[in-house]
């Protein structure tokens, strides 16, 4: 393990540790950048949520005229792109930026200036994307922008140019961020912290960063070729002049499927931190859960065409993708069972972080089982591109990633701000979101089975779809109410005086050793570590982990 000396001189007075706005703009402190990531991503999450509400209002009734078809297409494209690129990934990056250095006992990320660059690139990319609403029309070809439709001929306005340029910016920001995480995790761990002793969230952020490093270039290639097609007039996807319509789908989904693991693995890491603390037990089968993360990462690159089962590819290849998609279900199952085994025999205290973590486990199981349904090739021919897929996406991304991220928000809020979010408001938010989420996304299974395609701005009456869409719209407003409770909770707590409690949850990992909020240099002297749960070893020397010789 390289010691800290070479990486960072004595406690570096972090540039911009003052309070003024300029200090925030000029900061390279990983904690401030983490906070800026979290605030910006939450703002984009709320924006994406409002877009979702508009869509649900339009779909509440058959043949509704709340939104025109053009407006609806812009809104569902922006909803997808915002939630994926501007909300879930940056929330994971925000928590990673703030807590990976703290949890591995480092003073900052390996490249602090690069860290600031990736945040500002992300912010500018997001604003640039949203500015498309005002100048020249928002992108309207779906978040995965299939090729011939996004050609200049069929998407005349500049929407897709905005999409392409901002996706390039966001992709570069994520790649730079991932490189920063990989180098920090390899180089700057505390003395004694070998790879087997790193906390699970650090492990999952590491695996996510490696996946991002290998997956994002495929998106960069696809988007560069699309922009060349639209702006220079080349013919990569223009079929009449020799291009190929399927080329975009292959390039995009080779990035697309690892992308969904980039979104879910940090959340899995987060709840692997929360569940042990609130069950008062170590994570069950730690290294097997790590290995299942790595296996998911690798297999993620070999399953991409299960998004393309209906494109009429060779049947042998489709069956191969179907088989690989099944295999990828096994490590996911191992993770779910490990969380259950962690809670088994523990002493569960139902604080809001644990409620969200349990919500994750319960809902992600449904999402995972949906995934298995769609891996079955003949069944997928019936349910792909219908609302069944929309239900699967939202069970794993909303029920999974967002619940995991809210669990971390409540868990680490005391560490970041020195103030604890109110438990009652937190519980209200959880139950509203849980009930709302099920009311919104569960009927989508029925709609998918009833043959309702996705991305349609309206539908005919008398097909039995109206009742379910109405229920979903009610559910959507319930979820919005839950998010409102969170915002109230956030502002009320920030207004109250800080209690600056270093370890409110009596937790195990290194970040609770620092003060709340931690000093710019995190630790006076770098702590040394003898097991996965350094604080547990200190609190219970006789029952210390390293004595167990596990």
């Amino acid at each position: 393990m390289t010691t800290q000396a070479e990486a960072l001189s004595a406690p570096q007075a972090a540039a911009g540790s003052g309070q003024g706005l300029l200090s925030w703009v000029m900061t390279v402190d990983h904690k401030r950048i983490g906070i800026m990531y979290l605030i910006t991503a939450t703002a984009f999450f709320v924006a994406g949520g409002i877009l979702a509400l508009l869509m649900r209002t339009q779909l509440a009734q058959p043949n509704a005229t709340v939104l025109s078809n053009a407006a609806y297409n812009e809104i569902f494209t922006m909803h997808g792109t915002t939630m994926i690129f501007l909300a879930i990934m940056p929330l994971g990056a925000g928590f990673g930026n703030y807590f990976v250095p703290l949890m591995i006992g480092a003073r900052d990320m390996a490249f602090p200036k690069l860290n600031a660059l990736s945040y500002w690139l992300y912010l500018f990319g997001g604003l640039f994307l949203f500015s498309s609403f005002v100048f020249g029309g928002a992108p309207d070809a779906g978040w995965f922008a299939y090729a011939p439709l996004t050609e200049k001929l069929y998407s005349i306005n500049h929407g897709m140019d905005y999409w392409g340029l901002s996706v390039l910016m966001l992709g570069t920001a994520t790649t730079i961020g991932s490189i920063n995480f990989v180098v920090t995790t390899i180089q700057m761990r505390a003395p004694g912290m070998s790879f087997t002793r790193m906390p699970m969230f650090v492990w999952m952020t590491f695996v996510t960063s490696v996946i991002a490093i290998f997956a994002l270039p495929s998106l960069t290639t696809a988007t560069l070729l699309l922009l060349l097609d639209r702006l220079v007039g080349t013919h990569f996807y223009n079929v009449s002049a020799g291009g190929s319509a399927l080329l975009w789908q292959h390039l995009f989904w080779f990035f697309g499927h690892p992308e969904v693991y980039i979104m879910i693995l940090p959340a899995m890491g987060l709840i692997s931190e929360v569940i042990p603390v609130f069950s008062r037990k170590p994570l069950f089968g730690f290294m097997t859960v790590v290995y299942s993360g790595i296996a998911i990462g690798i297999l993620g690159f070999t399953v991409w065409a299960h998004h393309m089962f209906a494109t009429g590819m060779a049947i042998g290849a489709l069956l191969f993708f179907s088989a690989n998609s099944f295999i990828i279900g096994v490590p996911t199952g191992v993770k779910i069972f490990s969380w259950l085994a962690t809670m088994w025999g523990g002493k569960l205290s139902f604080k809001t972080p644990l409620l969200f973590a349990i919500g994750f486990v319960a809902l992600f199981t449904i999402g995972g089982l949906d995934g298995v349904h769609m891996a079955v090739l003949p069944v997928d021919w019936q349910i792909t591109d219908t609302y069944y897929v929309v239900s699967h996406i939202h069970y794993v991304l909303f029920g999974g990633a967002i619940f995991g991220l809210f669990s971390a928000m409540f868990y680490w809020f005391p560490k970041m701000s020195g103030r604890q979010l109110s438990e009652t408001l937190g519980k209200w938010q959880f139950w509203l979101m849980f009930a709302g989420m099920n009311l919104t996304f569960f009927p989508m299974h029925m709609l998918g089975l009833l043959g309702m395609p996705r991305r349609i701005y309206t539908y005919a009456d008398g097909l039995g779809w109206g009742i379910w869409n109405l229920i979903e719209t009610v559910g959507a407003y319930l979820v919005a109410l839950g998010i409102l409770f969170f915002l109230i909770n956030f502002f009320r707590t920030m207004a109250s005086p800080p209690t600056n409690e270093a370890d409110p949850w009596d937790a195990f990992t290194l970040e609770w050793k620092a003060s709340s909020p931690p000093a710019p240099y995190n630790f006076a002297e770098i702590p040394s570590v003898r097991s996965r749960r350094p604080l547990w070893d200190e609190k219970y020397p006789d029952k210390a982990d390293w004595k167990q010789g596990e």
Partner: protein
Amino acid sequence: MYPGLSLLLASEWTWEPSVLIGLLAVTTAYVLLAGPGRKAFRGSAPISTGQKTAFHLGTLALFIALTSPIDEAAETYLLSAHMAQHILILFATAPLWVLGVPDWLIEDVARRLPAVARFGRKLTQPMAAFGIFNVTLIAWHIPALYQASLHSDGVHILQHLTFIAAGVIGWWPVLAAVQDSVPRAPRSVQLIYLILMVFPGLGLAVLLTLSPRVLYPFYQAAASAGIDPLGDQEAAGILMWFTGTVAYLVPLTHVFYAWVHDLERADAAAARAAATAERSA
């Protein structure tokens, strides 16, 4: 499903004398080495049964590859049979032979021929081994080169020899028992190495499977035998794809848990040392 099945069952075993002699020579050499010949080498220890079975399994795999009906079908019409043959060589014979070779044999040879050992060490560097294995793999898939190997036996034998050599070099950093003279890579490097090995094969297999036309004109002849050459080519692509993914996941699991075991042993030792130091201080 698999178009070439009927023809595969129809072709018979081919008893190629040169192949048989070669395999026999290799097996007897190994048996002699394991038996009386061991004393000729310094620091030699009895070879474990695991290593023996591994080595002989490797030879058996080569035997199946070169003499079973696969070989005759591969020579005539079936790209998929030829692919199976090469997969047996690259993913069965080569790794099993590397597993079967005892470390003291290599240490002693290295002691006697330091120049060869230095060259061997350079070749089995992870970066170099990765390059050699994958460049050989991709080179022999280039239509011009592959057609040449189909038309002339000399080139075909050269192809098989380069596959065996590239296979041994490619698997050396992961499976070699040797620690000093021509060492295997450290466990963490093996992890990265195996993860990266998936991708070149994956790219090649994707292009082979999804190609809308027959890449190797030699196999157009398969149509006359009532086999759809495109379907056969697709089956070959899938075979390569599946092996490429699974063949690396199995050793990856072993390497991961071995790495964890090493780390945990080192950590436990360090923790105990720190504890005793604390107690004595």
